[in-house]
């Protein structure tokens, strides 16, 4: 399965009720764009685990600012098996 950031963005937009569809871009800073709380972090972790089989860590989250950063971590973890 080819990894596409557009699919990742669609999945994020469908998970978060307060996000306007089409408003999320790769360069979007997710902490500013969402009503960001630790509970929303769980929503993100859950979606990534179910859809991509990847477990993000708190450190992964800390070093990410944008949607592209998160996608890069997912891509790297999938590539590294």
């Amino acid at each position, binding site marked *: 399965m080819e990894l596409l950031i557009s699919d990742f963005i669609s999945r994020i937009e469908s998970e978060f009720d307060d996000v306007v569809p089409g408003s999320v871009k790769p360069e979007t800073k997710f902490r500013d764009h969402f*009503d960001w*709380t*630790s*509970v*929303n*972090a*769980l*929503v993100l*972790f*859950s979606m990534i*685990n*179910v859809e991509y089989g990847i*477990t*993000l*860590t*708190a450190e992964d*989250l800390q070093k990410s600012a944008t949607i592209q950063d998160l996608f890069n971590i997912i891509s790297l973890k999938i590539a590294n098996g």
Partner: protein
Amino acid sequence: MADVKINNTRIAGIAACVPENVDHIADYTLISESERAGFMKTVGVHERRMVSKGVVTSDLCAQAAVHLMKKLEWDPSTINALVFVTQTSDYVIPSTSIILQHRLGLPESCMAFDMNLGCSGYVVGLQVASSLINPTGIRRVIFLAGDVSSINMSYHDKSTYPLFGDAGSATAIEYCENAPEAIFSTGSDGKQFDALYVKAGGTRHMATAESFEYKEYPGGIKRNDTQMILDGLRVFNFSITNVPPQIENILQLASASVETTDMFFLHQANRIMVETIRKKLRIEPEKCPYSIDLFGNTSSASIPITMCHSIGTNKIQPSINVVLSGFGIGLSWASAWISLKNALILPIVEYHE
């Protein structure tokens, strides 16, 4: 993982008891209205039961046990062992189960001991209690599980305070020749003990006056060292990583599948954690009931609370096969594949002094 098969025992019945007092998350004004809405939707707790001052776990469990023995028409004199899983015992010593032997009118010949476990405690306790059963000795066991977690929470800690509820449960287990085989699998990860723990009050960090002083932590959290610390992301990652393969292992050992198993009763840690596990295992939503919306995370009582809440009736169950799974504090995780054929799973009762 330690996998165990147990034969010739059956669950005769399960009862659960909660305090009357309902606490609504909508009233938790320490966090904003939008945070409360997000918490209720994602974590799943809308309300929970909290004990009145002076009511403790053994009170809830004792009422559940008396109710269950009465409904099963089990004379207390026929009970050979009492096992109590709790992290909120009456005293530091002795085991609360021994006090309960007298309170419940069980014979002095009864074996009684406590087990200090939380989220995984129902499944581990059920395995231990079932493994005591012996045709010539211990034929009947009362297994109690519960916690009054509300006593360990800081109101000023939004990561723990709105999550937990108080509850107690009682499960009756007895010798039954040719009963369907029960299968258990357990795991322990002590390197992550500090992901969910209470620091002070044991012997490593004995409680002093300083233990009760409130300290500030990131996110506006305030708590003292006798109150629970929860690293939610670590527990979340631990659970979604370890629980699905353990349940797959249990199903394989039972020569069963998600499709052939009637129901899955998962520890009500928080809704999104359970949903993640459910989706990974491709379990249909109707096979995986919840109780967290009304009762919160009730620690070791959450599996029996969910059973009594979703399938509780005053009639015996048909032949249904279920998976149970508990995971969290320890960190520890345990799953079981059991039959509830002819078991009496009673509706939840409220505690009355």
